[in-house]
């Protein structure tokens, strides 16, 4: 999937993946896609809740090389 910006949250422990994702999205324009890489298992549930709560669509969620990868579209 194509994306406009990537943020690597590998190694960040809960709640930092969400804190940093929120910051990364703040600088993006509406409709742009952010790719987030995370290793914290809590990020899976947190990212889904974050998307639902903020209205930024969670387009895709997968695992690559043992890491969690998320694609979020800014509302």
């Amino acid at each position, binding site marked *: 999937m194509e994306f406009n910006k990537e943020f690597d949250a590998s190694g960040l*422990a809960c709640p930092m993946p969400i804190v940093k994702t929120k910051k990364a999205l703040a600088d993006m324009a509406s409709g742009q896609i952010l790719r987030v890489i995370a290793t914290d298992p809590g990020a899976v549930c947190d990212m889904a809740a974050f998307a639902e709560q903020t209205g930024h669509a969670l387009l895709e969620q997968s695992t690559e090389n043992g890491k969690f990868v998320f694609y979020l579209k800014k509302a």
Partner: protein
Amino acid sequence: MTEGMNPAMLVVMGAFVLAFIFGAVANKTNFCTMGAISDVVNMEHWGRMRMWMLTIAVAIVGANLLYYFELIDLSQTIYQRPVLPWLSLLLGGAMFGVGMTIAAGCVNKNLVRVGGGSMRSVVVLMVVAISAYMTLRGLFGQWRASYIDPVSIDLSQWGLSDQSLPHLLSALSGLSEKTALLITMTVIVLVLLAFVFKDKRFRSNLSHIIGGLVLGLLVVAAWFLTGNIGYGEDPETLETVYFATNTRTLESMSFVAPMAFSLEMLLHWTDQSLRMTFGIATVLGVVLGSFVYAISTKQFRWEGFASVEDLRTQLIGGVLMGFGGVLAIGCTIGQGLSGVSTLAIGSFLALAGIIAGAAATMKWQQR
């Protein structure tokens, strides 16, 4: 099946089973007290906070009904002493709140993470255990006892025999203890449940609702286990005692001091005076319950520290949780669930301190 089993054995085995379920359910429902606060501060999402409040409401109802029907005596818990060390509770709570935020979760969450394969959490918990033991009986304990704990209010000077809200209401109003208990319990629980269920999204979240109900009932079951089943005559001394608890009175779920006592047991295994207790069994139970859940759902994954900075931050978090958790007489579960379920004034103070410390840290993380 339980006939002939000595009460100490029943308490220990019961503790393991209850904690096993606690660990599995906490993992499955993503129950996380730090996460509950973080969701509110970082994305104004109150789902997990509502789940925690539901757990508290269930625990309050269950514990106080057991007390009302005289099946347990909540006035004997460590949370109800008629001395209010308000500085210890607030400062300890705040330190614990800071610690749990930078250590990616409270002690219970770290135990759940150990079950899920996190070696990072193993190290954090070792530090928590050392720090907590130092605060109970070591160097930190000397500072605690000399400078912080003495800043307290003696409630017995006003004729109060414990620090529960119902007892205070009874003393002020002249109502009987039991009437005051029912009124206080009902008002607090109704307020909590109104907040919990007013959100449509929460009402349709079966996982959170069942999680809150089950975890709350486990806290109640633990009170019954240690305060009723585990209360009786010691055949050796003929004294009436609470069997197999480190505090020598009834206990429910709590994890900071039990970490210290687990370490003590491992270090002094050949000391015949040490016994397996309720608290130590719950530490084991949570880890194993979480482990079985993680393995059966193929979610087990080894996890370590990500960097030098990560190691440093989490070590500091562990020290703060150990010190703060003992200072505040409990953690997010010990005070935030078990203590609050007894309606002790001090428990509400500790909980407020924890939430304030965690929220302030999260705000700082946003900069």
